């Protein structure tokens, strides 16, 4: 093992006096602040970096042909103007081909923001941002989670990858208390549906309506080794597309915990979406399109997961086994006059394994035993194999 030792005897400037709560104020002071940067602040690594992650999957549903899907091809381009001013971007191609229609795949700018790193407790961020919700949305590189596909809760309750345009502040105080608070473009209730809830309501920073911005935030504690406990919220008004206009207040709440001790990893998450005036949305959309979207007023999901590395630190790499139980209901509580679609009250057991030949490469397989409450619509089990990597 090679050790490098460094000694530093000079004091370092303190930036805390430059903190400001306004982006405009920050922009005004930024030139003077930048001049204070010392020669030693120059990054040793290249200022512009390319990294990314990819994953492709084999999905075999019961009684159906298997599919091979290059699910995600993501490139991160980052640039460090100086150690206190960064640009971060994440460009994603989903399902390999972008053919102009959603069915053909998606090309998305998932992140593209400037980070003004003022001090540890207070920093300013603006651009295309990830909503700070749940375990997966901000931490979704394939080698860091068990399972070929992301958890169902992180798909139809928290619509990962959930991103939109906005600005806000983030920081950390004490021994591991972190916060982020952003204002962002709201969800569009005209795109909500019964199966995937608010997922299709994201505006994705594309000429996004910001007549009434949404507020989102997260508080988490990372002060104990291996433990992350967090809770997040999102609150916005999503009825801007309806004429005559009416309010559709939407609230998303979640709480999550992740604990890693040596080979063991435990995860748990709960999330709930509340949609006010869901009946009015259903009535309006039925008049507009002729199809009732049957949107619920409450959507809820939770999961618990146990993973264990049965091989760790071997020359051949690591092997982990896991199981996860999920319960998701996107028709949890319906507005008066609407009945829930029982096919969307789902639960599933996932059991599988991950092999890491390198900490940044994951070969995954799992089997999903799926159930729903419908007596008509079946919930097929599935076998999945995935290959994902980060570089």
């Amino acid at each position, binding site marked *: 093992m*090679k050790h490098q030792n460094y000694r530093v005897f000079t004091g370092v400037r303190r930036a805390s006096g430059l903190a400001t709560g306004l982006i405009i104020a920050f922009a005004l002071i930024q030139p003077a602040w930048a001049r204070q940067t010392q020669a030693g602040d120059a990054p040793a690594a290249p200022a512009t970096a390319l990294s990314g992650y990819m994953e492709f999957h084999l999905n075999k549903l019961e009684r159906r042909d298997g599919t091979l899907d290059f699910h995600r091809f993501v490139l*991160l381009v980052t640039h460090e103007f100086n150690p206190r001013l960064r640009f971060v971007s994440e460009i994603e191609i989903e399902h390999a081909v972008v053919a102009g229609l959603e069915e053909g795949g998606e090309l998305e700018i998932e992140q593209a923001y400037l980070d003004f790193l003022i*001090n540890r407790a207070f920093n300013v961020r603006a651009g295309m941002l990830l909503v700070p919700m749940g375990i997966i949305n901000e931490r979704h590189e394939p080698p860091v989670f068990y399972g070929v596909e992301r958890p169902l809760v992180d798909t139809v309750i928290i619509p990962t990858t959930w991103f939109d345009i906005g600005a806000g502040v983030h920081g950390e105080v004490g021994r591991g208390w972190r916060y982020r608070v952003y204002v962002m473009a709201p969800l569009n209730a005209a795109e909500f549906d019964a199966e995937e809830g608010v997922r299709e309501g994201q505006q994705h920073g594309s000429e996004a309506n910001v007549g009434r911005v949404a507020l989102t935030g997260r508080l988490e504690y990372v002060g*104990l080794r291996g433990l992350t406990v967090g809770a997040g919220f999102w609150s916005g008004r999503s009825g801007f597309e309806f004429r005559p206009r009416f309010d559709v207040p939407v609230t998303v709440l979640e709480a999550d915990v992740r604990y890693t001790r040596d080979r063991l990893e435990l995860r748990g998450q709960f999330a709930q979406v509340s949609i006010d005036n869901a009946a009015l949305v259903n009535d309006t959309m039925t008049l507009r399109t002729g199809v009732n979207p049957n949107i619920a007023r409450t959507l809820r999901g939770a999961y618990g997961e146990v993973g264990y590395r049965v091989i760790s*630190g071997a020359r051949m790499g690591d092997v982990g086994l896991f199981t996860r139980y999920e319960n998701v209901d996107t028709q949890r509580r319906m507005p008066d006059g609407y009945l829930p679609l029982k096919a969307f009250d789902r639960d599933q057991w996932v059991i599988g394994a991950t092999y890491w030949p390198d*900490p940044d490469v994951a070969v995954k397989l799992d089997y999903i035993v799926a159930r729903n409450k419908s007596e008509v619509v079946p919930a097929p089990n599935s076998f999945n194999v995935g290959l994902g990597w980060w570089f």
Partner: protein
Amino acid sequence: MTRRLAAGVVGAALAVGSIGSGRPEGRPLHAEISVQVGGEQVVDVTAERFSFTPSEIRVKAGTRLQIRLSSEDTDHGFRIPGTDIDVRIPKRNRGTKIVAFEAAKPGRYTFQCSHVCGAGHSFMRGEIVVTE
């Protein structure tokens, strides 16, 4: 067919797991994170997407601080802006990087990850608080 195939693969994985090796290195995951050794303060810092633990290190001015850096996942960086400290932390199970730091006067010294490690890379920051 699908169930039989899945059961076979999971069974094989379990069989491989049962002959798995032990952890080769005594990486301190939950040991004390700060010890005093002959006037030198030794701190174990773990890097993981996207945090350092501990993220706040308190020392008295003039103390020689030895920071032992290891990763729980990918490789990370450790940089203290304004100094010449900028090292690469090796990936999980691939060793520890040691950095020595001595602060002559009280102040707050921010450290941060200097190697892009994922979507939350910018959150990876911490602070050395040097007191009188």
